[in-house]
Structures are given as C-alpha cells and as structure tokens.
C-alpha cells in the first residue's frame, strides 16, 4: 500500500494551515508599502490568531447550536477544500473524491452556515450581511461555472489534478489560447468576489453598512472568531493556489514523484508571492464598488468566461 500520496496530502494540509496567515500578512505588507504606510509585520496574523485563541468567548443569550458549530464547519470545509486542490502535487488520494464542482460546493457549505449564523442572533447587521453575501454568491456561481467549463474544455475533465496535468504537459501552442486567457481574467474577478476583497468588499472596513462578509461574523469572539478568521485566510490562499494550479501549473509535482515536492513548495512560494503583489496592487488601485455595481462586475466576469468558451469553439 503506497503511503506517499497520504503523506503528500498531510504535507499539503500542513502547508495550508501554516502558510495561509503569512500569505495574508504578505498581502497586507505589500499594500502598506504601496500606500506609504508602515506594515504591522509579516507575522502579525499569527499573533492575531494566537491572541484570539487565548481569549474567552462572549456568546449572545439566544445563540443556538448553529451559531456555536458554524466556526468548526467553516474551518473544516475550507480544510477539506485544501485537500482537493493540487497545491504541491497532483498525486492526492482525495483528488478522485471530488472535482471542481464539488470544490465550489464545499465553499458553498461554509457560506451557507456563515449566513445562517449571521441570522441566528437576531440583529439587523447579521441579516444584512447574510442577504448581501447570498446575492453576491448567486451572481458569482454562474460566472465560476462558465470559467470551470472553459477550463474543462481544454483538458476534457473536471478533475483538478487532471486539469493541472494536462496544462503542465502540453506545449506552448496549447497554452497560449484566448479561451484560457479569458477564463483566467474571469477567474481573477470571481476570486475577488468570493474572497471578499476590494472592489467587491473591503475586509478592513469598520463601517457596518459597508460590510458584506464582516457583518455576518460581528457577534463572534475568542476562539470562534480565530477559527473564522483563519478560515478566511485559508480561503484566500486556496483561491490563489487554485488559480495557480489551473492556469500556471508548472512546478507542481507529478504522480509518484515524491522528490519533486520540495521544489514544488519553492515554486508555490514564488507564484503566490507574485500573486500577492498583484492582489495588493489591485486593492490599492481600485475603490470598493457600490453594492449594486457588483452585478455589473460579476456580469463582466460571466461575459469574459462565456467569451472564453465561445472563442474555444470559434477559434480553436
């Protein structure tokens, strides 16, 4: 019984857990640098999470079991999603368990329960966050599906490992296609919406009426909040890795090749470092949109993904 896929899977999960906060810290540092501020340090997210873990929790009197279990559900779903995406290697035992559609559904579970937790306490802000989040999600899903469809047209599969392998092993003609370029831009826009970054949602806002994601988790404190924040950082890390795996998969270790995994880690650091810089520049350069302009933004993402699909049929 070959244990190496299992070892790789565990390594991947550990990398995810350990590296997600430092990626968030990197994005913050680049953002501060580009705005001429001093950053709180690359390791600040670790300190924040540790501080929150050490605190007691204050729960509202009428919080139900849904409120208490949601942090674990969100954290667990994000961790499971990390087990499917080929971050370091395509040789994952779980890759046959779930494909891209199941991945989207895992994130949907987390979002469903976060929205329910927002409505649980009975405040106006929680309901507002839940309502807005479900609206953004309902517009992002068609766009995400079209992008997935375009990706799967090239590799004739919806399994992430398969997509990564096909693109990594094809020659330059197959890679520089308009359909993949369009799908990539659409994916970036969708990732911004799903992870709640500017221009869709400001993760650092303190004004409740401008919040989408933050409004749902206003009532959380202590360990619960630590888990949710960590899960948010992991989700950002995962979306960046997903983009890297689907569109720039060179460097990911192949099946049965354990020795390539450390190199894959180095490539990952380089790719995500670049991605972090680009994300920070996008966030600095754009302003948060009005809520109903998000429709146009996600509509444009859908349009680009559809154009990618159409150009596959028309031009390729």
């Amino acid at each position, binding site marked *: 019984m070959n244990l190496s896929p299992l070892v790789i899977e565990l390594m991947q999960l550990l990398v995810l857990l350990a590296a997600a906060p430092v990626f968030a810290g990197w994005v913050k540092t680049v953002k501060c640098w580009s705005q001429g501020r001093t950053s709180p340090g690359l390791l600040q997210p670790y300190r924040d999470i540790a501080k929150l873990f050490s605190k007691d929790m204050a729960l509202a009197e009428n919080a139900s079991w849904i409120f208490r279990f949601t942090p674990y559900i969100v954290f667990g779903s994000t961790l499971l999603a990390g087990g499917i995406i080929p971050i370091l290697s395509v040789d994952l035992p779980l890759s046959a368990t779930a494909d891209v559609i199941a991945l989207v559904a895992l994130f949907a579970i987390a979002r469903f329960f976060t929205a329910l937790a927002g409505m649980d306490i009975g405040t106006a802000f929680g309901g507002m966050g839940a309502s807005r989040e479900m609206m953004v999600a309902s517009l992002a899903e068609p766009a995400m599906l079209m992008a997935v469809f375009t990706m799967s047209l090239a590799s004739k599969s919806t399994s992430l490992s398969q997509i990564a392998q096909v693109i990594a092993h094809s020659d330059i*003609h197959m890679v*520089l*296609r*308009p359909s993949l*370029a*369009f799908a990539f831009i659409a994916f970036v826009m969708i990732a911004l919406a799903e992870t709640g970054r500017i221009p869709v949602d400001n993760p650092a806002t303190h004004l409740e009426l401008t919040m989408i994601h933050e409004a749902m988790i206003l009532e959380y404190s202590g360990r619960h909040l630590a888990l949710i924040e960590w899960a948010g950082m992991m989700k950002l890390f995962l979306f960046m890795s997903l983009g890297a795996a689907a569109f720039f998969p060179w460097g990911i270790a192949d099946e049965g090749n354990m020795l390539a995994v450390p190199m894959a880690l180095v490539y990952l650091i380089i790719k995500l470092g670049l991605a972090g810089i680009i994300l920070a520049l996008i966030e600095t350069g754009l302003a948060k949109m009005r809520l109903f302009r998000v*429709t*146009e933004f996600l*509509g*444009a993402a*859908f*349009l*680009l993904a*559809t*154009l990618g699909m*159409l*150009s596959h*049929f*028309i*031009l*390729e």
Partner: protein
Amino acid sequence: MNTQTTAQIIGFLAAMVLLTAFGMLVQRRIYGLIHLFAWQGLFLSISTAIVGYMTGRHHLYISSVLTLTLKVILLPYILNVLIHKLKIRKEIDTVVNVPLTMLIGIALVILSYHLTAPVRELSTFVTRSVLAIALATVMIGLLMMITRRHAVTQIIGFLAMENGLFFAATSATYGMPLVVELGVAIDVLIAAFIFGIFFFHINTTFDSLDVEYMARLKEED
C-alpha cells in the same frame, strides 16, 4: 513562422478585437471608450500586417499603416479634441441596463457563428474562423449605436462597424484592392469631420448632445 503559428496569433488578435468590442459596449466613460477604440484599431493593424506577411500580399502592409494612422492616432485625437472643446459630459447613459446589453452581445456572437458556418465549410483560408468574429464586431457596433444615448458613442459605434467590415475583408479574402481601401479610408475621415461639425452645431443649439433630447424635434400632433 509557419502558418500554424501565424493562424494562432491571428486567432488571438481576433479574440482581442472581440474583447475590445465588448469593452466598448459596456464602457461608461468617454475617454475609456476612445482608448478601447484605439486598441481595437491597433490589434486590427497588427493583424493586417501579419496576414500580409503570411500571404505575401504587400499592399496589406499599406492598409495596415493606413489603419494605424487613421484609427489609432488620428481619429482618437480628433475625438479627444471634440470632447474637450465641446465640454461634453464624460459619462454615458444607457437605454438598456448593462447586463442585458452584455447578454444580447453574447447572443449576437452565437448568431454570427451560426450564420458563417457555411462559409467556414467552403473556405480554404487559414483565417476562415475569424469571419464569425468580424461579423459579431459589426453587429456589436450596431448594438452600441442603439443602446447608448450619447452622440459621440454613435460615431464610435459606426467606426466600430467599419472596423469589423475591414477585419472581415482581411480574413475572408485577404484584403481589398488598394483603391477600395483608400476610398473607404477617406470616406471615414470625411465622415468624422462632418460629424464633428454637426456636433458643434447641435451642442450650440441644445447645450447637450444627448440624443434623447433630439427626439423632441419631431412634430407633435
């Protein structure tokens, strides 16, 4: 470069032309519109040059330079001057909302793909699939003229249609005879001048270039 690579590059440029057409369709700011139009002209001229290189028809190089001068440099400059002189409002209103316009645009692309299917069967040119994109660009230009209320967008829509026709000519028949090309180019230039003069007059009379106001010119009964 072999034909396979050039065909792929032309395909890529065609996708860029389509992208700029859609970008113009959903753009809300006037300067963005003109920039996109300039980019479209640039992609078009590069594509013409590559077709000229691939087929060895050197008059296409002249067409390419003509397109470059006219559509990338001259016309955007004229339009910029126009907007600046007339102090035109820089936002564009739409008749129909943006997502619906995008959906209609997608439907037009699918329609033009369907319509050009017989030509694709018969043609032996490497660039035959680009005809669908060219037809789609023409129709999107027309859609732009219909769904926008700003007079400058009407002229850019018209110019986008002409871009599409030019693209169709280079891809389906490897270019038009140079005489026809020059004639069309001069016609476009003159049309731009005449539009400019009209805009001055309209703006002076109505203090606005919103085409909805011009609907008041019809007789009431």
